[in-house]
């Protein structure tokens, strides 16, 4: 049975609209290089400012973005809020990013079709497609933050989509995607919520970061060691550098110590370390569990605010 002209025409035009929407949204989606694995995505929010997911930045320095034209630019971390998984990066003024176009003319509701658009280091954007599942408000995240609104959608969270755009079928941005806030499922942080958070991050107000003054490397823990010490995790963070006079050094940490947990939170990689050093840890005595000389040790130290 051949397809009728109108049938295939309608689907073809929907398909073209979706592809054009990906292209349009993609103009404001950049790659964010801030971890050792493949890059993640970011959203141009102002001509020199990018918002991304905080958890994809495993370090605070040596960050960069790749714009849709394929150019790579150094980026500086303005601040991050692990509780809402949002971070703000700034690039040089002459980079001239194309800020995301916002969808403002109608309220998003369950059933609306949406696209997830990212650019994890690929020349062209990547995308998935689905429907809005729910739109909620005032949500305390598992990471201790509070979002005044959030969007859930059944879009597939392809690797590297975090920090990318949740867009409507016209390619206008409705939110930024995070795979961190709901255990791998996509959560969209609405544009208006990003505005508020980004402003607070930029002003450095309530979103300060705790600071230990360490550089670390994830290391595998031998099975024999794990079973002898009754440790469940398979990796820890070995201290490779200690800043003179910083909280870690003053608190008695030594090079070669393998940190297992901070404040009762397991730290297996750089991402977990960043998440453990939220604002709540500043000036708060915090327990550090580590392996030193093949034995478990616990010490308490007090993280300071991160120097600007």
């Amino acid at each position, binding site marked *: 049975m051949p397809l009728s002209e109108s*049938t295939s025409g309608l689907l073809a035009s929907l398909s073209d609209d979706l592809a054009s*929407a990906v*292209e349009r949204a993609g103009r404001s989606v950049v790659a964010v290089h801030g971890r050792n694995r493949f890059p993640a995505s970011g959203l141009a929010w102002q001509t020199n400012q990018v918002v991304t997911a905080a958890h994809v930045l495993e370090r605070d320095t040596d960050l960069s973005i790749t714009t849709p034209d394929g150019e790579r630019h150094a980026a500086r971390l303005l601040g991050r809020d692990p509780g809402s998984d949002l971070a703000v990066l700034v690039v040089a003024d002459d980079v001239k990013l194309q800020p995301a176009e916002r969808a403002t003319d109608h309220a998003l509701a369950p059933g609306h079709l949406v696209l997830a658009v990212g650019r994890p280091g690929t020349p062209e954007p990547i995308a998935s497609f689905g429907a809005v599942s729910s739109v909620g408000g005032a949500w305390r995240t598992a990471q201790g933050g509070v979002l005044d609104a959030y969007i859930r959608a059944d879009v597939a969270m392809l690797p590297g989509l975090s920090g990318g755009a949740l867009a409507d079928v016209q390619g206008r941005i409705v939110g930024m995607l995070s795979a961190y806030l709901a255990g791998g499922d996509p959560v969209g942080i609405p544009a208006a919520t990003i505005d508020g958070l980004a402003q607070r991050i930029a002003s450095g107000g309530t979103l300060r970061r705790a600071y230990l003054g360490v550089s670390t490397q994830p290391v595998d823990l031998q099975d024999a060691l794990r079973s002898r010490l009754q440790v469940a995790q398979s990796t820890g963070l070995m201290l490779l550098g200690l800043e003179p006079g910083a909280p870690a050094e003053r608190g008695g940490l030594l090079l070669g110590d393998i940190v297992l947990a901070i404040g009762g939170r397991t730290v297996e990689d750089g991402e977990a370390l960043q998440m453990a050093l939220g604002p709540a840890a500043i000036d708060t005595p915090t327990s550090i569990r580590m392996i030193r000389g093949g034995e478990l040790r616990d010490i308490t130290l007090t993280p300071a605010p991160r120097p600007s």
Partner: protein
Amino acid sequence: MTLDVLAAADTISSALHDLTTDIAQSVVLVRGSMGGSGCGVIWNQPGLVITNHHVVPGRSAELTVAGGRRLVGRVIRRAPALDLAALQVDGELPPGVRVGDSDALRVGDLVLAVGNPMGERNAPSLGIIASTPHEVLRLSITLRPGNSGGALVNARGEVVGIPHMVTGSGLALAVATSTVRAFLQGADGERPGDRDQDGLRWI
């Protein structure tokens, strides 16, 4: 909600249904003589069925065409590196598919996979092209074992790929029809790399 909006959604639903029933005529169920099962696509050449190499490990396979008639297909060519196999069928086959240009696909284009997921005959799955098309298409779509060797069609009902692998994250891969064309002209592809290490598995 306006009537126009309801009508558009209703028409799109009907269009997807029509597309599914149309393409299902040209998708066959394939049972390999040495185990393995999946689908095959009746190609636009007499007696030719295209499927995945991993669906037909043996020299021949039993094909069930729309309506339940069974035929035997002989493997006349295979390229393990491309995961493609060509079957020759001596009996009469339903009409073949229209083959589309996979290189012309754009990220975001709608695609529909029709196969035999978890034994559901001719079940459609809707998705989109997830990244720039190459010899293998990356799709954002939910596929299951039994989709292998089936048809991936664009919104115009033209076959653009043969789905063959999935990852755990809502991502699937399909062999592009540009690769099928090259295969039919004699290409074997390169030795399979370490694609299994990326968490990919056959479907």
